[in-house]
């Protein structure tokens, strides 16, 4: 996890115009004397083991039961909102252009790269239905799902919250997100649906009724065509 801080990164100060700085040895700076790890953008990072992720999720479930999913989503939501503001700052500093002036896909790829470097997985955004008010995000190698393995249900609530929070801040419109397919359900990658709350609530209902990600995609698209 990272929280914005004023930690400086020596390589970044040396090469402020370098954009491909996502190699492990370049992106992270290990400050041995302080026992801290800073990343390229000055965030404080903490490395955790898979045991930590399991402990966190199982501990939370033991404390609050089924509400643990909502708690993880809320944590992600706040994280995403804060990260959106943080991203705004470092994007402008690195590219000397405001996020509003940048190409949308370039902006989003740039936002996600630090997450990839931190081990949260690679992503792919499907914006084909953006004008209809929803979009899909495919996530490869989710840190949470990879750790928990095949447990037969979606587990990436933290990511769903993160996407909802980030995009809500970015478009200044209340958005929700749901994971409609998960590596932990035996699929090869995770898939998220992002959109207005009523649409996400509907998808949650269909998912509970046993619909697959493909069913939900088809249903949303056919509704738009009517």
């Amino acid at each position, binding site marked *: 996890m990272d929280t914005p801080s004023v930690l400086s990164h020596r390589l970044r100060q040396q090469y402020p115009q370098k954009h*491909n700085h996502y190699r492990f040895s370049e992106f992270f700076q290990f400050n041995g004397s302080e026992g801290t790890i800073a990343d390229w953008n000055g965030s404080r990072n903490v490395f955790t083991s898979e045991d930590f992720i399991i402990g966190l999720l199982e501990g939370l479930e033991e404390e609050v039961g089924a509400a643990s999913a909502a708690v993880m989503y809320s944590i992600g939501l706040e994280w995403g909102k804060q990260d959106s503001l943080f991203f705004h700052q470092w994007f402008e500093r690195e590219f000397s252009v405001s996020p509003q002036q940048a*190409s949308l*896909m370039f902006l989003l*790829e740039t936002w996600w790269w630090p997450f990839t470097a931190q081990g949260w997985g690679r992503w792919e955004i499907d914006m084909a239905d953006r004008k209809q008010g929803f979009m899909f995000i495919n996530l490869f190698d989710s840190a949470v799902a990879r750790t928990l393995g095949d447990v037969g249900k979606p587990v990436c609530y933290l990511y769903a919250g993160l996407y909802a929070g980030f995009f809500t801040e970015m478009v200044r419109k209340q958005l929700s997100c749901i994971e409609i397919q998960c590596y932990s359900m035996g699929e090869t990658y995770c898939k998220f649906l992002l959109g207005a709350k009523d649409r996400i609530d509907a998808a949650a209902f269909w998912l509970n009724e046993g619909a697959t990600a493909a069913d939900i995609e088809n249903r949303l698209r056919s509704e738009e065509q009517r």
Partner: protein
Amino acid sequence: MLSQLQPLVREVDGRYATDTELMFLQNYLQTARQRFSAYHKNQAAEVDIIRLVKQKLNATEPHLLRRGKVDLSAKWQRDTIRVLRYCAHALLVADEESLGERFLLWFQSIMRSFKAQHSCDLTYKVMQDVVRHYLTPEEAELFCPILVQARLLLGQ
């Protein structure tokens, strides 16, 4: 080569390295002269290489570097020079393996975000033909696989 040097320094601690451990260094030394020569030729011919690749692209697909009324030539040129320089550097230090991690994987996502895969595919295909005019066959044998790697990652 460089990425293999660090493990060698780390692992060969208080003993002599085995022949197997030194193999990559031997291989590098065998091709080092060609790598230096090809690197300098690339450097000297960079402007011409880019101009020729652009000419060939224009001849094959006149609208490749345009999107509607927008001329993307200047942007294409900046991107192509950057890739050529990273590839030349990988050739020099024989570090083809880490080229992806250092640069190409990031650049792939950027090229995809601008839907530039088709132009990348053609650019690095054509570039292989162009650089052969400036390099000896042995030098081209070392450099073209790096361009193939760039084409493979950026072109899809």
